[in-house]
Every structure is written in structure tokens, then in C-alpha cells.
């Protein structure tokens, strides 16, 4: 199958949007028993032919988790999802070219369509952990690890 996409004028690096409004209802404040995971502990192997999720991440599948990362420049000012990265994209060496995302991203699907914060802000995300390949029906965005029913706050 050959995918062809129209040219877009939108630039990933240039996309900048307003402050978060919807993070006021932050699940982090209420979910005391939520497990915290980190980018460093997501995988037990990280190789050319793919990754293996760590045992802890596998065990937490379907459970509520908290993870801290950086919001990538959102695709739209208001969206139901955004990409969480280990490092702010502006200083991610992998992202200096216009080619692609880093490989170890986490995709965050919000409970509601949400106003995003500025690209590169450190955020704490809470929600339900999902792993395994999934394709967003609306955008075609493919993800391997997600936090769903999520909310976020500035970290």
C-alpha cells in the first residue's frame, strides 16, 4: 500500500498554541494510588528490530498511571491527543531534521478535547496505560504506548 499525503503548510516546529485551560481538573491531585512510570523504565530492550516493554509497564496495562514528559508541538491548538516526549523536541537531537518523531514517544489521549500548552513544556500526565499498536481513527496516527482518558498539568 502506498500512502500519499497532501503537502501541508503547517510546520511541526513552528506550531505554538495557548496555555492549558483544561488541566484544571487534574486527576493527579486526586489519584493518590496512581503508579508513576518514567520514560527510562518503559522498555526492557530497545533494539534495531523493535522494543520490548518492561515487565512493570506490561503489568500496569489498563491501570492508572502518572508520567512526566514534554509536550511536543501539538498538531492542532485544541486536540484530543498530543505526543509526550522524553526530552523537549526543540533540543532533541533526533528532531533537528524535519523527518520524524523520536522512537520512544508516548501518545496521550485526553478525556476531552483540550487546549494545549506551549510546545516543549514539561507536563505531568495521568490516565490509563495502554500498550500495543493502535491507529487513531481520525488522524491515522499510529502509537505503541498510550495514556488514555488522560488529563495533564504543568509539571
Amino acid at each position, binding site marked *: 500500500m502506498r*500512502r500519499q499525503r497532501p503537502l501541508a503548510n503547517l510546520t511541526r516546529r513552528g506550531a505554538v498554541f495557548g496555555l492549558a485551560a483544561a488541566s484544571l481538573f487534574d486527576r493527579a491531585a486526586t489519584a493518590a494510588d496512581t503508579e508513576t512510570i518514567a520514560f527510562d523504565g518503559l522498555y526492557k530492550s530497545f533494539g534495531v528490530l523493535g522494543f520490548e516493554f518492561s515487565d512493570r509497564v506490561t503489568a500496569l496495562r489498563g491501570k492508572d498511571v502518572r508520567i512526566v514528559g514534554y509536550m511536543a508541538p501539538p498538531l492542532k491548538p485544541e486536540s484530543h491527543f498530543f505526543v509526550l516526549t522524553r526530552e523537549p523536541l526543540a533540543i532533541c537531537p533526533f528532531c533537528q531534521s524535519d523527518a520524524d518523531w523520536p522512537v520512544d514517544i508516548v501518545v496521550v489521549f485526553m478525556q476531552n478535547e483540550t487546549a494545549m500548552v506551549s510546545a516543549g513544556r514539561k507536563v505531568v500526565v495521568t490516565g490509563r496505560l495502554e500498550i500495543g499498536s493502535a491507529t487513531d481513527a481520525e488522524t491515522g496516527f499510529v502509537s505503541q504506548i498510550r495514556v488514555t482518558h488522560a488529563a495533564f498539568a504543568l509539571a
Partner: protein
Amino acid sequence: MRASCLLAAALTTSLMGGSAIAQTIYPIDRAEILEGSRFDFKVEFPNAPTSADVSVTINGKPAAEVLGRPTNFIQSEEGQKHSALWLRGASLPAGRYVVEATQGGNKAVVNWDVFATAQPRRAKNVILFIGDGMTVANRTAARILSKGWKEGKYDGELAMDDMSNMALISTSGTDSIVTDSANAAHAYTTGHKSCVNALGVYCAKNALTLDHPKVETIAEVVKRKTGMAVGVVTNSEIEDATPASMVAHTRRRSDFNDIVEMFYAVKPDVIMGGGSPNFLSKMTPGSKRTDEQDFIAKFKEAGYTLATSKTEMNAAVSGGTKKLLGLYNTGNIDGAFDLRLAKKGTISKFPDQPDVVEQTKAAIEMLKGNPEGFLLMVESARIDKYSHSLDWERSVFDTIMLDNAVKVAKDFAGERNDTLIIVVPDHSHPMSIIGTYDDSRPGQLLRDKLGVYNESLPPNYGPLDAEGYPTDVNTSRRLAVVYGSYPDTCDTGRPAMDGERVPAVKGPDGKTNIANEKDCSGPLAARKTGNLPFDANSGVHAADDVILTAMGPGAEKFRGHKPNTFVFRVMTEALALGGQ
């Protein structure tokens, strides 16, 4: 996983000649076309005329008659405000052609030079080395660092300097003075000029990136017409612009998933680099594909051996493999500075990556047995990437690495006189050596430590290792290398031992890039106000010409000043690739 639609550069599709008032003809005026090579012929007519309103002739005859096949006219192509006349996959015998597109009272005229290649074929093999972004200062610094300097002379020559022929090459694209690595490499591999971000296509008005008028690459010509083997070797992601230019046809260089499919379609015998995620089915964690195609499996089914480390690469070579897919990193392969000295980057994740020299040795070993000869492209990709980061030590280490790879090729070519070796950058960076920083000079500021003219004493770098790299560059007297383009940044005047330099980061407004404060607190750190647009976070390319050196049959054609497209012409002439 991947972003579905975004591209950093502005993609105005009609910058050149495609204005609302004139017909546009592809290939463009002054195109030099290899006899018998395939190209898509397209004429765009403004204001969506009907076919009855236009005519297209080649040397005064109807285009279809000269091209030998019917053309296809599309009024309001893709619903746009133009009409198009197409003939995909055209080819022509050698000669001069005048193409005229008439619309009402307006006539557009272009000239093509379709060139033949003389028999007999002069080169059995061609090895094209591309130092991505390799500027004259890269060569000078590589010579100082790896050969030594005394009383105004060097203690040795670079392998790439010690060649019989040299030319000054200009690198601009059709749309802009300053090129990028996509259309710069495209010029070498197709002989056509194109626009920024484009590979193997002219930049027409088409909406989809894969629909633009294509031109054939040298790898495709070789695979279609000869029994030669083809190799593509890089230390960037294999889908990156330079290696992709051997196989790709897209208006957008970041179409990595499509580019993997294009590699599979052309099937170079040896493919080595980073960028494995675009080969993996989207069902595999770590994939960046958006479909379920498993290109690792596909290449294996097509007879390729897979190598994911230097050990596996060498084992494949010893085992007699002739077709290799070598993917050694999910991203770019680490550069020589990190492989040898700093051990940063992704060394901990990928501890067994080959460098460009080892890849070149392996590639030649696999290709050289082909009785019909081989075409090999080798890129040292991060010379450019590190110059973007204003990290000159890493850029120069990768220049030394390229030179060592050239040495491998020269050793292979030896006295054979059947192998054309070309070493050429694809574009330059604004980079210069202005003196040396000497910590023993008085003063507190970086500029106090700078010795210029008679005070630019030679650096006191550590002794060379067996491959000619200094074992220490974090010494008290260091080259002062400056870049002429930069965002707001801080210059430490020292090598970045804790990882590739990050010159700037996003500011609070999320848009403007500001100095990376991590580099601003050192004892000598010099804060510099950027001279680039505010959205730039790294250095940019320069339009300055680049130096090509070459040896072997056909190399004598390189002299004086040439456009980058001339490199294609010399390679195809040496291999006698012309003819129907």
C-alpha cells in the same frame, strides 16, 4: 509511530516558473538528460485551458510524435486552476531539443541537451563519496587534526586531497540559492536540478508528494540496463536525503515510509545505515510505519542477509553475502567523536555500530566480486548534522572518518585503473578556522584566549591513534573554528564532551529560539546574539561552492567550475550508461 502530515520547510509548489501567467515545462530549460534515461514530461498551462487551446511541440513536431507515445491531457488537473499535459516514463535519443508550449498568444520555450555516452565503457566501478555539508574548513581542520602541522606545512595529505583531479562545484537548486541535502544529492544521482526537499522529481503543482514529474536515478538506470551491483552506505538514517537520492521520487524528503518502499523497489545489493523503525510493521513496538508491511521480512525474502551490528555485518561478509541490509541504529549511527572519545549519543543503546570506514570496507568486499562492476555511494552524513549543531569537533572527526573511508576505496582501486572515485560535498556550511584558543593567554573572556595571525599557535591536541584521530581534543590550545550563522547561543570554545552540542532551545513564547543556558555558565562561555531568523535553532547551509576531488577513468573531466549536475554526467559517461 510517526507524524502524519507535517513538514518543516515551506512547500510552495510553484516557486519556479509556475506562476499564473506562463506555461511551465518539465524537464526545465537547460536540462541535460542522459540518452535513454526515463523522465516524466509535463507541461502545466495556467487558467485551466482545454486541449484545443494549447499545443506542445518538440523540435517543431507534435510532442507525442517525437516521444513515440501519446500524451495525456488533463484539464483542471486535481481541480486546480491549471491544465496539464503528461507523458510519464519518456526517453529520447541524443540530440538537442527545443520544446515549445503554446497557449493562445503565449509561448514558453525550453531547450534540452540529451547527451550520449561514448563507448567503450571506461570504468568498471564508480564509488561516489559524499561528505554531507563538508566545507573547505572541514578539510583544513581534518588535515590539521589528523596529519599534523609544522612550520606552515602539513605532515601528510588527506586521502581525498591526494587525487588527480579537482573541480569547484556549485550546489544551488532550482528554487533557491542555498540548497538542502535532498535536491543537492538528487543533482548527483539524476543529473537534473530540482528544488529544496525534493528527491528524484521536479517540483510541479501536484498536491501529492509522490505525483510530481519523476526523473530516473543512476541506481535505477544501472539496475535497469546493466548487471552491475549497487551499494548505498551512510551513517545517517538510510531514508535520509542523501542515501534516498539513489532510489527516491518524492517532493518531500521526510516521506521515510515511502522511501523504504522505494529502496525495496530498486533493491540496491548493499544497503547500510540507521533508521530501522520505518522498516518495521506498525504492529511492532518501535515501528514508525503506518502500515503493517514488514520490510525486514520482505528484504530477507528477496535474498538479503540482515545485519543489526558490526559483528553481524562482518560475519555476513565473511560468509560470502552479496546482498546485505545493514541497519545499525533506530536513528543515525553515532559519529566518530562519540564512537571513539566521548561515548555519548546512543553508544550505550547501540554498543556495536560500525563506522563509515568499516561499512565501506564491508561494502566493497561484498560488491567487488560482481563481474559487471559496481556503483557505490558512501555518505559521511553527520559532518553536516554536527555543523548544524555548531559542533565542529564532531563534524571534523566525521570528516577524518570520511577520509579514512576514501583511503579504503583508493587501496581497492590501487593500480586497477578501472574504478572512478569521486569525493564531493553536497553543500557547504559557513564555517572557518580563525586561529586558536589558548587557555594560557591572559584575560577572562573567550575572545581574550583567541590567538589570531602571529599568535595563532598550533593546537596541542593529544597524540593520534592508529586511524589518525587525535586521542584528546579537550586540551589547553585548540583550534578556533567559527560558524557564520547561528541562533542565540553560547560559545564555550571547547569540545562538548557530554554529548552533541545543542546551540539553542525554545524560548518561553514557544516559538523564538534562545541560547541553551547549559553552555552559558562555563568560565569562558561567550554569549552571542543570533544572526538567523528567530525560528532557527541551529546553523544553516551556505551557498558557497564546494571542492570535488576525483581519480580514475573519467576523473579528468573534473576541472574548473561545474554545476553539481555535472557529477551525474561524468559518472554515466564513465559507465557508458547512455543509449536506448
